[in-house]
Structures are given as C-alpha cells and as structure tokens.
C-alpha cells in the first residue's frame, strides 16, 4: 500500500512537471515570429514572461493585484533591455557615456550592453551597490555643463526624453546641444 502510494506520489509529480512545460511551448510560439529586440523586450517583461516571475512570490502577488485592478504598467526592465540593446548596435566601442538620469535598469543593462564602452553616473569615483544608492551616488549635470563632461572625456550623454531615453552625441559631428 505504502509502496503504491509512494510510486503514485512521485509519478504525479513527474507528470505535473511535464504539464508545467506548456508555458515554454506557448512562449516559444509567441517569441518565434518576433524580431530580436522584440524577443528580448517581451522576455524581460515581468507581466508577460513567466520566467521573470519564477521564484518571486511577492512579485506574483503584486502583479495579480495589479491585474485585478486593471492597471497595466510599463516594465522598466523590458524597456531598458530593448533600448539598451538597440543603442548597443549604434554606439562606438570606444565611447564614454554619461547617464544623466540614473535609472537602475538603464545603468545596469547599459553597462553590460555597451561594453567595452564605459557608462558612468558620476564623473567622480562613487560607490553603487544597487538601486538604493544609485540615486544618491549619481550626479545630474545641467545641459549647459555638457561641455564640461566632454572635457572630462565623455563622448555621449544619456538623457530622459518623454517616456524614454535618448543619447546625445557630444562629438563635433554629433548632435551638440
């Protein structure tokens, strides 16, 4: 009896595991026709990709609440992924970039996407260990002082533009403000 029960219990878990593969198949068919940038954006959106939510009990709870209220918010990681990826195809490898509006997703993703170009949020040495001290450590530079950034070796500045970001090229051939 106990043997059959053990076998049944393990067997049920195994079958349940196979059923849990269905979302992979569904996401695969969703991603397949999309462009590279669209795939990355969708796959990093916590509301759209079950993989972002894996292991995140609190995130699931908050998303469920949001869904009940019908308030769909844009996903900062998804937006930052797509924007960072697309800009990485354009930025020169020797660029030195200043992030003038410190958002964690843009800083962390931008640092990765734009390597070997360097991304800073402060021209002085500063400690950034996460979201909490990113805002404290960052220094916002007024547009009138962008020439100072150029003198310090920065070739591009990331600024906020409406709901997204834009990159200002500080080089003489670029879009000098």
């Amino acid at each position, binding site marked *: 009896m*106990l*043997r*059959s029960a*053990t*076998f049944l*219990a*393990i*067997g049920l*878990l*195994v079958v*349940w*595991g*196979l059923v*849990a*593969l269905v979302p*992979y*198949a569904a*996401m*695969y068919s969703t*991603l*397949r026709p999309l462009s*590279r940038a669209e*795939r*990355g954006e969708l*796959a*990093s959106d916590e509301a759209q990709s*079950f*993989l*972002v939510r*894996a*292991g*995140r*009990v*609190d*995130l*699931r709870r908050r998303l469920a609440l949001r869904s009940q209220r019908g308030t769909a918010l844009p996903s900062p*990681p998804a937006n930052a*992924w797509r924007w960072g*990826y697309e800009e990485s195809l354009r930025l020169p490898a020797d660029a030195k970039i200043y992030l003038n509006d410190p958002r964690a997703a843009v800083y*962390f*993703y931008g*640092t*990765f996407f734009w*390597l*070997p170009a360097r991304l*800073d*949020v*402060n021209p002085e*040495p*500063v*400690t*950034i*260990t*996460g979201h909490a001290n*990113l805002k404290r*450590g960052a220094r916002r530079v007024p547009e009138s002082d962008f020439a100072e950034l150029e003198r310090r070796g920065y070739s591009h500045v990331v600024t906020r533009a409406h709901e997204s970001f834009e990159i200002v090229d500080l080089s003489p051939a670029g879009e000098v403000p």
Partner: protein
Amino acid sequence: MTRVGALLALLALWACGAALLTLIAPAPDRLPRSARAGLAFGLGLLVISQSLFAASWLGATPAWWVGALDVAALGGLALALRRDRLADWLRPARAQATPGPGWLRWLDRGLLAGLVLVVATVSLYALTEPLVEWDVLAIWATKAKLLLFEPIATTGYFQDLSKGYSHLDYPLLWPLSLSWIWVGAGSPDLWAVKVLVPAMLAAYAASFYGLLSQRADRSTSLLFTSLLLGLPMLLSQIARMQADPVLGYFVMGAGAATWLWLVDDRRDCLRLAGLFVTGVLLTKNEGLAFYAVLLVATAAVLLREGSRQRWQAGALWLGALPAAVSSPWFVLRAGIPRVSENYTGRLDPQIFLENLHRIPEILAGVGAYLLDSRDWLLFWPALAALLVLAVRHWIRGPLLFLFVLAEAPLLIYGVIFVITPWRPADLLEFSASRLLLHTLPLQVFLAAEVVRSARLLPWLDRVDTRSGQSSA
C-alpha cells in the same frame, strides 16, 4: 556561423572534460556512459574557465588558443596514458535493467521519453530567447563581457566601486565559461551563448542519473531523474542561465561522488569529488558553506572509521586539490573591496542575538516559497513527509551523511537571513528560491536513496538495494 562557432567552443569544452575524466577515472566502465558524458561537461567548465583565468591573470584576453591548448594537452595525455580507456566512451554501460515485469520496461521508456521532452522543450525555448535575466546581465554576463576586452592583469573593474552592484568579489567560473562560448561565437552574441542551456540540461540529467544508478536500479534512477528535471524552478533558472543551478550541479557531483567514495570506497569517485568541489568553490561564494559542511561531515565519517589511508586520500583530493586550484582566485578576491554585503564580518553572536526576533518572519517567508507549487510543484512537502515516514532508514548510517550535506547548507543560509543588513522579506524575495537550488539535486538524491533503502517502490523487492543488481 555565430552559433556554429559557439557549438564548436562547447564541443572543445566537453572534450577537455572527457579527456580529464578519462585520466582521473581509470575504471570508467564503472560509470555509465551517460554519467561520463554529463560529468565531462562540468570538468570542461572547470578546465576551460581556469585556463582562461590563468591567461587573463597573465594579461591575455580569452582567445581560442587557450581552449585549443587545453584540448591538445589533456587529449594528448589521455591518448598517451589511457589509450586503452578511450574505447570505453563508445562501449555501452553495464546492464542496469531492473528485473521485473514488462510494464517496468515500458515505464523506463516513458520516463526516458519524458526526459527527452523536457530537455528539448526548454532548450528550444531558451535558444529562441536572448540573455535577459536581470541578475545574469548585471552580474555574470557583465563580468564575462568585460573580461573579453580587459584581462584581469590590467582591468580596473575589480576596484571600480561604481560597478559594485555586479558583486566585484563573485567568482569567475561561470562568467569565463560564457566568455569562452563568445570566443567561439566571434562576438558577445546574446543568443549564441545560450547553447550552454541544452548542454547544462543534458549534463544535469545524465550526471544525476549516472551517479544515482551507481547503487540504484535503472527504473528508480530514471524516476528520480525525471522528478528532478521536472521541477519548474530548476528548469527556469537553467533556461535563464543563472549561476545557482551551475552551483547546484557542482554540489551534486561533489556530494554524490564523496558519498559513493565513503560507502563503496570508489577511488575514481573521490577524484571526481575533488574536482567537482573545486567547481563548487569557484562558482558562487555560497559554495564555501557547502565546502565547510562537506569537510566536516567527511572528517566525522573518517574519524569514526579510523582508516589512515582514507584520511590521506581524502585530505589530498578534498583538501589539497581544491585549495591549490582555487587559491589564485582567492588571492585575487582578497584584494577586492567588499561593498555589497560582508556576511563574514556580521557573523557575530551579538548581531545574531539582536536579530533573533526575525526568525518567525523568516520561517513564514521561507514557507511561502517552499510551498509555491508554480516553482516547486509539491516537492518540499513530499520530501518532508518521506523523511519523517522513513526516519529510521536515514537517521543512522551512511544516509545521514547525505542528509547533512543536503540540509546543513540551508541552515547556514538561515543564519545569514538572521544577520543580514537587509530586510529579510526583501532578501527572501530575491534569493530564497534560488538558494534552494544549491542543494536541490542532493535533496532528490537523498530522497531516492531513502526510498531505495526503505524499499518504498513496488519493484524494489526484486532488487538488491546495496548494489542495484538483482538479488535473484
């Protein structure tokens, strides 16, 4: 072309591991071919990443010649010293069939088909999706991409506090493995690097099955391998290329191989354990907790035995080898400023006592993660029920060693949650489920061994529970 290059890099990585395995396991016919193939992947990760580390330390960025030298050196040694053993890679493993009724053979076929389905489905998806996971991009892939352009010898990264969020002191085995695939791909392509996902999935399945089948019959080994590979949390984190399942894979190899050495005196398993425990130390800082537990538990078993020869062998392979191979990394790490969290510095009895009030919150929080069926099905309650029901089968004897290896690291993590400077609820949200992955394969291995020892499956009466062979 990018993906072909990535596949060639993966093949070179596996070839390094296969050559090393041929050298260190003089009786590979005792390990099934599946286990050899799966374990070779882990040894390849270790060899390639450490060669790239050495080259980077000397001022070279990752390049194809580093892996080519590894393949040539290890392949040449295997050819020169173990030529007779190379043919074992083509020979089928010893018969593992479970004696029993016909339906058992159908069960085996069904389980095998299920495993193929899991690996194929998750791989297909993972290869369609680029690298997107927050932690992977911000930590592991950032290190991997940076080291492609700047060698350890000259980079300012390890002192750059503005990149402290990427955890400057996290080990480099996984990042350098990513770098190697990118070398093969010709560029840091976000899709090509994901060829590591099918390889990791297959290595998990093959290694776990192979190690378990050293003592268990084929049906039991397949059943528990299917259970492990069906757990959504494990699959999701492998698909996303997190470092936690990589650590879990090395912990599985180190723990299971040490156990096989202790119970069956398998010297090939001891050598394997030594190399896998080195992988544990070089994958994530949490590996230090597992290593400490492994050393203490192994020493306790050996003390009881009093065999001087086994002490010496254990000290060499589990002590000296991992220390020697990982020491360059720990020398580098000693000079890296700790800016994120310094848990060693907070291991103070006073801090622990001051934070004791957190324990109920931590237990309730952990419970919510363990019981979330979307991540774990009902694995953890089932494991707890099994351990309670079959307590007399593991509380004394060799299975207690496996229990300690699987559970003690989680207890250490529990202490970390008590002393952490962060709010425990925040830390749990980002790390609880991923930390559980570190010993997950060992938990399933323990469950399988308890079930086998207590003969809790219908066919186990027909099988000798020590060797996995028919008692008839």
